[in-house]
């Protein structure tokens, strides 16, 4: 698991000669290979696949969800799980949208919405670390409550936010050069969190806590604080994602993100995060999102019958995880 952690130090200092060996040993190599094969197949299957516009659209389709995946991966590593991500993302949209329609400046409204999501994360963290309940059941309850708040705030009706100022919409709809800002934000977030998670002392504690909470506590790590913070961080990132979605679609939908949690967790797990905590990488999780997203886009591009799509998607998910597991097990 998370081999880029255990092997990098071992391999470091041996220079670029070992780069290939290092790549072959990386946890993510199997996944990259699977995605690569998919790309090759698709390039032959459809002339439209390997075009700039299609690539951009594919990335746009998962970029914002990718930010949620980052939070979920870190939470999974610390030993938690969060089913409320979909509702909390919707809540961010709804709160910010509602405040904006009530006359609040959209930037301030977004700040308040992200703060509200962070607060919800803190409440979950409280119930998990202080009361001692399981993440699963707490986040399930919060998922229902957050959805309820969305409905209550909007009367169940989507909020039309076409009047958002252009500089705000730019977050979701603008481009810098040929590259949409959303993609830039996504890449910056991925690189930043991937580095932090692998290299900083603060985030290493997340691994220790998830791997063996007692051992971590005996080493003086405030494991409850760690879990509290990862829980809060995940919700805060949902808040950020919600704001970006709002800027992108120019509306706030109280029913947004239904079922998102399973997609996000699946991506992290495909990417090597363990549901028992202690292992996982951002890079891997993002590869997981890419895989799921490329499969969906490809099925649409090939105009596969709707009724077959679910079957194919599920089978590819199962196959990918099995192949990855097999490769990883053999390599050890």
């Amino acid at each position, binding site marked *: 698991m998370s081999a880029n952690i255990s092997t990098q130090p071992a391999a470091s200092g041996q220079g670029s000669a070992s780069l290939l060996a290092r790549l072959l040993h990386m946890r993510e190599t199997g996944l990259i290979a699977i995605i690569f094969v998919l790309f090759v197949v698709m390039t032959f299957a459809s002339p439209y696949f390997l075009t700039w516009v299609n690539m951009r659209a594919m990335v746009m389709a998962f970029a914002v969800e990718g930010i949620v995946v980052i939070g979920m991966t870190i939470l999974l590593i610390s030993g938690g799980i969060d089913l409320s991500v979909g509702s909390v993302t919707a809540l961010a949209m709804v709160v910010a949208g509602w405040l904006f329609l009530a006359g609040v400046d959209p930037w301030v409204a977004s700040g308040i919405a992200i703060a509200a999501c962070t607060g919800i994360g803190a409440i979950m963290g409280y119930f998990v670390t202080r009361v001692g309940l399981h993440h699963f059941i707490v986040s399930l309850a919060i998922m229902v409550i957050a959805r309820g708040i969305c409905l209550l705030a909007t009367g169940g009706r989507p909020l039309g936010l076409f009047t958002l100022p252009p500089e705000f919409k730019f977050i979701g709809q603008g481009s810098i050069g040929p590259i949409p800002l959303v993609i830039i934000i996504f890449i910056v977030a991925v690189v930043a969190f991937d580095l932090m998670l692998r290299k900083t002392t603060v985030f290493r504690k997340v691994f220790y806590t998830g791997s063996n909470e007692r051992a971590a506590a005996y080493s003086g790590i405030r494991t409850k604080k760690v879990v509290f913070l990862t829980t809060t961080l995940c919700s805060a990132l949902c808040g950020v994602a919600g704001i970006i979605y709002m800027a992108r679609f120019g509306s706030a939908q109280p029913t947004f993100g239904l079922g998102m949690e399973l997609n996000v967790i699946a991506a992290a797990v495909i990417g090597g995060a363990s549901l028992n905590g202690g292992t996982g990488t951002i890079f891997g999780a993002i590869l997981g999102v890419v895989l799921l997203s490329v499969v969906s886009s490809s099925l649409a*591009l090939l105009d596969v019958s709707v009724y077959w799509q679910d079957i194919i998607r599920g089978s590819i998910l199962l196959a990918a995880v099995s192949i990855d597991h097999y490769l990883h097990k053999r390599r050890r």
Partner: protein
Amino acid sequence: QGTLACEPGETYVMNVMVSSHPYWVPVYQGFRQAAAAFGCETIFSGTPDYDITRQIASFEQDMVRSPAGVLLHPMQADPFIEPINRAIESGTEIVTFAADSPDSNRTAYITSDNLAEARFAAEEIVSQIGDSAEYAVLENPGQSNHDLRVTALISYMEEHYPNMQLVGRQATNQDSNAAYRATASIVQANPNLGAIWIPEAGSAEGAVAAILEAEADVLIMHADVTPATLEHIRAGNIHMALNPNQGMQGFMGFLAVFMAAHSDVFDPFNDYQSSGFNPMQIPYVDNGFAVITQENADSFDLNTYMEGRDTD
């Protein structure tokens, strides 16, 4: 006796599934307005879940109050046959709307004509992009009215405009991000795509974003409406939306169930009275649909409409 007015406390229920869905809001407004005119009480009930077991439980719970009638949106036809018939036997009249349970003893069924919507949409598409072009649809398999809007349009095209080519058909299940993804791929795969038909508004929000980003010249038409798609209609990004007359659905629905409960005012020229049928049988009422375009968009802002009205 002999007049059409409610006794004090006479109550009518409107029972739906996914009760938080905004679609019901104007329907219930119509239902209430009609009830108010006859001095009747109303209750909005149902289940927040997409779950037939729960909806049946909520329907059976409605019966505990012995309402005079229920305007019901049955999630599925057959499972409701037995509960509807039992309710009628115990003195509660049932009328269905937007989805039917045809084999039950409900007295009437009020709905939009999904076939007519699909026909209208097909003709509009052809009139805009010609009768030998490419088009695509998004869909939501498993939800009957959405299914009908899509399949009817496709078969209408096949029958009347054989040169129209269906080049994409994707399930997006009312999820705007899934619709974004699917539409983006369809547009990529079919550079000559002329139009896209979407049976609900949630997917339309994602589809319009994808088409704008691809800078493709694709005509978008969809059914239902949300504030975001309304804005896109105003801005010309969406060509047109077809919206069922929800208010009429509720208003007519109330009238039908109210009349069924007061059928004693009516003695028609048939055998219903002697054979024990409710004489207020109406096989089917079409509540019609509205066409939303750039010009009339302002009348379709639900939030504006609901201002000052009770949401409950």
